[in-house]
Structures are given as C-alpha cells and as structure tokens.
C-alpha cells in the first residue's frame, strides 16, 4: 500500500502512455531493415546442412560467378580473430574445418540484392564428412561421442546445503520422486535478427536490433581486429528480444562488419524467419530429476535435484543461464537440506541461451509440479503449503541467502488466492468435474516464484550502467542510457524516473537510442535489470542536475531549498504553488549563467558474496516474487486445453507505471501459455523441422486467457523509488501453474512440456483404463 508520502510523486507510479507508442502505430519507427545507405550490399549466411562433421571442401566458384555477388567469406578471410563465444571461447564466428550443429554458419555472402545474396548462398558448395552426432543430454552425459575435445560438460553447478541428503530423506514423512522433461522454446520476436554495418571514420559503425550493444561492440572489434574505440554501435528500434537478442546478434553483427570492412561498403544482414528459427538460440530443453522429502506437517525438509540442460553445440550463455537455474530450482522456499546438480551438456544441436526467465521456468515447472503432487497426495491446501514453506525476511534460501528486505512472497500468495476467487472456483470446478455429462474438465493450478535481481554473483563484473542527461536551454531534455528499449517500455519508465527526479514533464524528454559513443558500457539489457540499473544511473545524473536547477530556483524564488518543490515542469513554493518558476526558465537561466546542464550518471549493482563450490552465499542482492493461479478447461474427448483465466500477483517493489506493468504481465502470460500447451519445436536427427510460423505455433488472441494482475509493492532499498524488475517474472510462474491446472483437471501430473492435446488425450485414456480396471477389481 502506498503511504501518503509516497503519493507525492508526480509521475512515478502513474499510468503514463508509452512514449514510443505513436511511432510504432503510424509506422514511422525505423527498424534496422528500414535503414539504407548508398552502395549497400545484402548479406546471407551459408549454414551447415549436417549436425556434425568435418568440412572437407568449400567451393565458392559457382557463387562468385553469379551476377551481383561481391564476396563470399569463410573462416580463412576473417581479419581479426575467428571467435565469437561470449563467455567461453569455444565458438568460431565461421565454422573452420568442423561443424557442430545443423545451421552453423560456414560462409557469408554479400551481393547487390537480397535475391542475389540468397541465390549465391545456395551456390556455395560444401563437402562434408559426416560424424556421429550427439542429439540428447543422456548420450552427451555418457560421452561416448565428444562434441568438443575437452568433453561434453559445459558447466556443473552444485548446491549443497544442510546435512547428508539421504539421511534427510530418511527423516522425511514422505518422499516423492519424479523426472520431468521440457522442450525448447523459441523467442519468436516479431522482428527477426538483423543488423547493418558500415565503414565510418576508419572504424565500423553498426546499427541493429540488439539487447546488448556493448556485447556487439566487443564482438565486432574482435572479429574485424579493431580497438573498441573504433567500433560504434547504434541501436535501432527493436521489435522484441526476450533474451534472443542478448548475445546472439553479436554473431550477425560481426559477420556483417567483416564484410563491410573487407569490401568497404555498407552491408545489411537480415535473417529470414526460417533461418532465424534454425540458427538462433532457444530456451534450454532440460531433463530434471526431482526428489522431495516432506515432514508430516508439510514442511519440505529435503530436496535433491539433478537437471541436465541441453546447451547445444557451443557454450554461448549456458554458464550464466544455468547458474540462475542452480539458484531457482528449489523455488522460493525454505529447505534445510538440499543437494542439487545443474549440468549443462554439449550436443550437436542449436546452441541454447538466454530466454525470459533465464533457465528458471523449466525448474520452476518441475518444482511446482512436485508441490502439486505433494499437496494432492497429502491433502494440503496449495496456498497454505506454499506459505508454510515460503521465504520471508530472516529466512534462508536454498543457497543459504538470508533474506533481509523487500520480500512480499506471502502477500502474493494471499492476494493470488483472494483475487482469483480460488476457494469459490474450486468448489464450482469440483461440482463441474463430478458431472459426467460435461464435455470438459476444469482445473486450477498454483505456482509461486522468486527471481534474483540483476546479474548476480556470476555476472557482477558486468553489472553496471551509465547514463547521460542533457537539459537544453529551452528546457527540453535529451537522455541516453546504455540499456535498450526493445518493446518492454523501458523508454517510458526511464523517462518517468528522470522526469520525477528532474522535476520536468515526461513530454520534455527525448530519448536517444543507445549509442556506444555516448554512454559508457552499461552491461546487457537482460535479467529484468533495466528499470533498476538504468533507472539508478539516470537518478545519479538527474540528482546532480537537479541540484543546479534548485540553486537557480533558490535565486529566482528567493526561497530556501527545503521550501521548494519540483514537479510537472515547475519549481514552486511548497506553501504557495502560485509562486513558481518554470523548468524551462531555469534551464535558460543556467545557460546564460554558464552553468552546465549536462551530466553523466553511473550505477553499480550491490556487491554479493557467493561460494560457487557449494552454491552457498548471496547469489543476488534482492528478489522479485510472484504467485499465479490458472484456470483451465480440458476437453475430455480431444484433450484440447484452454487457459480461461490467470491471476498473477507480483511483488516488484515500487510499480513505476501500473499500465506497463500489467501489460508486461499479459505478455508474460501469453508467452508462458504458448510454452505450456502449444509451442512444440520438433527436431529430428539434429534438424529442426518446425522452421516456419505454420508449424511452430504460438498463441493468437483467440487462445488468450483473461489476465488479472495485482501488485504487492514491497519496496527495495536499492531500486529507483524502490523498484525491482518484472520483465522475466511475468512469464516465470505461468508454465507451472498452467500445467498444474491441467494436471488437476485430468487427474495426473504431466511430466513433459509442452502439454499437447495428443498427450492429454492419451493420459485421459490411460486414466480411464486404470479407473475401469479398478472398478472391475
């Protein structure tokens, strides 16, 4: 609840319209494919046709003969270093001698037209010697075949808490075990991957659709062989990222830059949807073995987890993604004895990486399914059970992180129950399901989550952000931060934070898209960190400028600082709002007094201490929390599932913009529902078969659930105005709560995601057979 004091904010906490809405509606927003430069070439990648093998020969001659083809570059033509790995150096920019997944880029073509580039790409003849491919985590784990000479383990995170785990299980009243598997999820951003590189001032300038312009800068510098200062990255409007544009765009930007550098012409590389689906990263498929021990009173006393993640052919971000898995596999619960192993494994499949939730929705699904099984078997109420085990101030997480502040988990559980009308619905559904004449079964499912803010122990060295604010002499303001607007509403929320701090109006603010020449390296736009990190960096700059404005106001109004209030573009007498000076007049005054109204801001995420050996310590400085309740309806005859409603209660600290926060939750629900019941990436012998939108299917508005979002605002002392992140938490509880609802409707726990109608139908048949049998007996 907001206190009176907090209500004093003029724009923070308000439903401000998106500052970039109009340009996206009227079509004037310039995405990278809208940009063009004179003499520009088009690039196309030539990708491996097999999942594993040696490259015996690359013959460019047919491609080079085609009219309009400017170049075909391979590993041998790279002017800098042939490496692209973001965290671990195991990945070449262009495959050299060996290919490790179907779709791995081997060559890159540039031509005068898109059509010629595409045709030429098909004319690059590659001879392979196929090798045996590793296509699943179990085979990878055995290491009969090695994907990389060093072996198949990408990373192995251990969490060891409490005493001997077997002894702990022996003390449990009941012990539950189950193995879960979960498929890929594709980001399916509306705008496919794309970038445009050109030679400028003896260096390279890259425009593109990125989440992490500073990663791109580094990758281009390495590939081309230039100092960072000669690589400038300018963000264009981004049509969605969801993690898919974290490290991955670096691969394409480096290729386009290489062509531009060699050919001295602008080069545009836009992936078409099929290639994007084939080569770009996905959410990790996982196999998750869970064992949970519970006391008679319903306390979880032991948890053993072994999660095998399919990292694909290269590490990319697996080491950081799976670190997060190792923090979140036990959920937001207090568990005294924990033994967890999270293992990333190489396979000859597409590399997996960042995706909204970053390695957590998979294990949340498994853990919350276990809780559902336990509640159903032991007769516990799903909310009470969660509350009984919930993290709260003073409690220890599975990593023994003592929660000190901003923990609204229990409130989210209470709110979710109340706002979903759970108890009434449950009774209605029980009655409905008892009626055999009904065509459908209805179910309710619950799931709770926590989410570590920012990059945490594994990424602290990246966890900083810069900003630049300039107030022009007419009172208009330019802002530049190092995190990007990618559709999530960052510009709006950050403009609100800056306007609040400066005392100007949101409308006075103009955002400059990220430009690596203007702001310092601000780390990636990931981990739900932008509001907090760039928000704090803006506050840092804004507070310095506000002081100067305030000094000017003191002079004009002949009042003391503490007698002046600044909001909505006016600095005024707290006691008499008619006595004021406008923001614009103050800007003008400062200009003619030669007071600079341009400043930089910088913010560093709170430092955390963590023991990687045992997975104990502070993995993140603070957490967001959420609880979701799903209502589903299952067709008894077809197995089709519809999610009718989702109630999501989120503790995100201060809500900066309630409208955008709700929109974020709706988006997370849509993406989570797709993941839970629909999106099915089919891969056969290392080849993805669902390379189009007619086979890889995501929800439309017709499949959409009614979403009710409610907020718990347990403020975080380190967040701007008390804010925490929401981008990923919005999706994270969705899959688990939907699958629990389906399981409760169908009367069996589903151990594989997506839960497709075919599987539900089969499960209902199996159940019917079991029931019939027991009737006979």
């Amino acid at each position, binding site marked *: 609840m907001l206190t009176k004091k907090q209500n004093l904010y003029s724009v923070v906490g308000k439903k401000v319209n998106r500052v970039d809405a109009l340009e996206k509606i009227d079509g004037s927003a310039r995405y990278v494919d809208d940009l063009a430069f004179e003499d520009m070439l088009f690039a196309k990648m030539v990708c491996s046709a097999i999942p594993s093998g040696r490259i015996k020969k690359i013959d460019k001659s047919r491609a080079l003969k085609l009219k309009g083809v400017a170049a075909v570059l391979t590993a041998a033509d790279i002017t800098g270093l042939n490496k692209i790995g973001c965290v671990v150096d195991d990945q070449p920019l262009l495959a050299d001698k060996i290919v490790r997944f179907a779709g791995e880029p081997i060559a890159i073509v540039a031509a005068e037209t*898109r*059509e010629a580039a*595409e*045709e030429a790409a098909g004319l690059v003849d590659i001879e392979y010697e196929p090798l045996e491919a590793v296509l699943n985590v179990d085979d990878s784990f055995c290491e009969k075949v090695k994907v990389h000479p060093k072996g198949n383990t990408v990373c192995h995170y251990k969490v060891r808490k409490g005493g001997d785990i077997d002894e702990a299980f022996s003390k449990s009243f009941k012990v539950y075990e189950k193995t879960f598997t979960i498929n890929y999820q594709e980001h399916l951003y509306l705008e496919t991957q794309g970038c445009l590189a050109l030679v400028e001032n003896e260096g390279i300038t890259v425009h593109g659709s990125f989440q992490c312009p500073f990663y791109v800068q580094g990758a281009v510098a390495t590939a081309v062989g230039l100092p960072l200062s000669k690589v400038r990255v300018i963000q264009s409007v981004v049509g969605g990222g969801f993690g898919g544009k974290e490290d991955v765009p670096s691969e394409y930007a480096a290729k386009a830059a290489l062509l531009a550098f060699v050919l001295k012409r602008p080069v545009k590389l836009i992936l*078409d949807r*099929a290639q994007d689906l084939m080569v770009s990263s996905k959410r990790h498929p996982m196999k998750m073995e869970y064992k949970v021990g519970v006391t008679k009173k319903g306390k979880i006393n032991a948890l053993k987890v072994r999660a095998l993640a399919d990292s694909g052919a290269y590490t990319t971000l697996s080491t950081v993604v799976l670190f997060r898995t190792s923090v979140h596999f036990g959920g937001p619960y207090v568990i005294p004895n924990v033994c967890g192993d999270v293992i990333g494994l190489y396979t000859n499949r597409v590399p997996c990486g960042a995706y909204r939730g970053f390695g957590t929705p998979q294990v949340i699904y498994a853990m919350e399914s276990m809780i559902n099984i336990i509640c159903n078997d032991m007769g516990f109420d799903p909310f009470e059970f969660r509350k009984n085990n919930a993290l709260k101030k003073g409690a220890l997480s599975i990593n023994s992180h003592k929660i000190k502040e901003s923990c609204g988990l229990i409130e989210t559980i209470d709110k979710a129950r109340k706002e979903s009308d759970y108890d009434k619905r449950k009774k209605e559904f029980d009655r409905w399901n008892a009626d055999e004449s009904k065509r459908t079964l209805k179910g309710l499912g619950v799931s709770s989550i926590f989410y570590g803010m920012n990059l945490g122990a594994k990424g602290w060295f990246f966890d900083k952000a810069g900003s630049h604010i300039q107030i022009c002499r007419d009172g208009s303001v330019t802002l530049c931060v190092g995190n990007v607007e990618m559709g999530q509403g960052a510009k709006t929320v950050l403009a609100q934070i800056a306007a609040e701090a400066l005392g100007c109006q949101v409308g006075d603010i103009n955002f400059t898209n990220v430009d690596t020449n203007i702001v310092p390296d601000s780390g990636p736009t990931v981990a739900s960190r932008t509001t907090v990190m760039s928000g704090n960096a803006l506050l840092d700059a804004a507070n310095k400028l506000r002081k100067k404005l305030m000094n000017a106001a003191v002079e004009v109004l002949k009042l003391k600082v503490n007698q002046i209030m600044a909001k909505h573009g006016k600095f005024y007498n707290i006691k008499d709002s008619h006595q004021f000076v406008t923001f614009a007049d103050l800007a003008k005054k400062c200009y003619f007094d030669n007071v600079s109204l341009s400043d930089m801001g910088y913010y560093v995420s709170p430092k955390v201490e963590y023991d990687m050996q045992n997975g104990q310590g502070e993995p993140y400085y603070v957490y967001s929390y959420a609880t979701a309740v799903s209502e589903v309806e299952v067709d008894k*005859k*077809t*197995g*089709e599932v*519809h999610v009718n409603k989702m109630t999501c209660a989120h503790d995100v600290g201060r809500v900066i913009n309630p409208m955008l926060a709700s929109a974020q939750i709706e988006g997370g629900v849509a993406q989570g529902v797709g993941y839970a019941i*629909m999106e*099915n990436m*089919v891969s056969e012998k290392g080849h993805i*078969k*669902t390379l*189009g939108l*007619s*086979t890889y*299917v*995501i*929800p*439309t508005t*017709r*499949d959409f659930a009614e979403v009710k979002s409610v907020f718990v605002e347990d403020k975080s002392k380190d967040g701007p105005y008390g804010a925490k992140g929401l981008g990923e938490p919005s999706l994270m509880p969705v899959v688990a709560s939907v699958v629990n609802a389906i399981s409760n409707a169908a009367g069996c726990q589903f151990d594989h995601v997506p839960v497709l*109608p*075919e599987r539900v*139908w*089969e499960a209902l048949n199996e159940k019917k057979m079991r029931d019939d049998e027991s009737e006979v007996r």
Partner: protein
Amino acid sequence: MLRNFKVLTPSSLNETLYIINNIEQPYRFLCGGTDVLVRMKDNPGFVKVLIDISKISELAKIEEHKSTFVIGAGVRHETILGCSHFIDNYNGLIEAVAAIGSPQIRAIATLGGNIGNASPAGDSIAALMAFDAEIELRSIDSNRIIRLEDFFTGPGKTVLKNNEIITKIILPKFEGYKSGWKRLGQRRALTISKVSAALAISVSKRPNGSFKVNDIKIALGAVAPTVIRARGAEKFLLETPNFNRAAIEQACVLASKEARPITDVRSNAEYRSEMCGVLLGDLIERVNVFE
C-alpha cells in the same frame, strides 16, 4: 525469397486458356497467392511463371441455377461468407470458410485456390465434398465436369491437365439437410487443420418415433493423402434400422478406421484417426438431427 519468375496477366478467361495451351515452362495460377507465394518462397525454383487470374471477372461470379449454385473459382472466401444462399443452406461450407486463415487471408484467398492447392488439409475442400460438389475444368478445346472427390490424386496432386483451369464449383441444391464442419488445429485460429470433418445429413422421423437417415455425406480432412469421404460410416448410417446414439457411436468408430493419417510435426496418426470419430460425433450432435 521470391526471385526469377515472370507474371502474366491475361484479361479474360479465353486469353488464359490460350496462354496455358501454349505455355512450356512450369507455371501456376496466381489467385489470392496465399498458397502459391508461400510455396515459391520455400522453394524458389518451383515455378518460373505465374499467371495472374485474380482480375478475371468471369471467374469471380456466383450464380443460382435451378438445381445448383455455381461458384466461380476466383470467388474469395470473404465473398462466400457474405452470401445469404450459403449462410442459409450450406452451414458446413460457411463454417469451414470462416475458419480459413485470418480476415486478411479470407479477404484475398479463393475457393479455386484452396482446391487447386490440393492440400489434404484444405478446409473448404472437406466442406464442399460433403455437399457432393463438382468442378468444371476447362481448356481451350474441352470442358469437363468432374466430381470434386475425383479431382485429387495425392497431396498437391490432381487430375488437372497442364492446359486446364478450374472455372467453377458446382454445388447441388440441398433441401432438408443439415450440415456442419469442424476441425482441430494447433491453436484456435489461424491454423492448419490437424484433422477436420464435414457433414451433410438428412434425417426423418418414423411414425414410431425412431429416426432414419435419408442421406448422409461425411468428408474427412488431413487424415489421408487427399480429403476423403468416409463411405463406410455413411453406408452404415444409411442402412441402420434405428438411427440413435448407439448407431452414431458405431459410425464414429468406422470413420476413425477409414482414416489413413500420418504422423508429422503437427500431430500423430493415432490421435488423428481417433479424432475423426470424435469430430463426426460432435458434428452430428451440433447439427441437432433429433430435434
């Protein structure tokens, strides 16, 4: 990406017939383009010439005759949906056409294109087949009318000769029939059918209160190399002395057995077979024959 092809734009049906009579390169008609352009994008070499027939008015007419409705091959789905004849008498067709793609697709895609594309999942095909539709195929020197059912020989394969075009779809008039169409897809809208079924049925009540099937036509989509008629189930219901729930259940089992589906990225064979029966049962229920 689309490249290396030519578009011809005849202004009349005759000109079209002349062109296709003399053309040597592989070609396709371009009507709404919603199938042909997608296929060209996936497989750039697949045709060299497109013959744009979207503006030929002779193909875009709907006519009512004594015992038939005649729909031009170039009639768009959206047009069908706005046509009261069909709304009143061909509910199954309306249901199928209303489910094709999205409003944007229906505004440009045509019935002739759906048939010409010859997908076993073609939604209007199943509905039309349940109405015993026929089609007219014309070339410069011939004109033949065949049953729609006989047109298809496999996925994307038909008996259409290189110099022929579909000009008309002929729908017999139906009196006293009820009809419906239903599908299962990967999502609720804008989806390719995993299984579909269409039904046209005429039932009468005997003086003793029992029901008799006068005529029934069942078409199943996406469960065989072409859309098929479930003749076994039809025959069973036509011959059943007492058309009741038990008979319907048995017909559903028969329909499932008539399906010869495959497993692909959208679904599996077993499920598809079973769903034929489920959809048939649902349709019979939905058209409310026992009222």
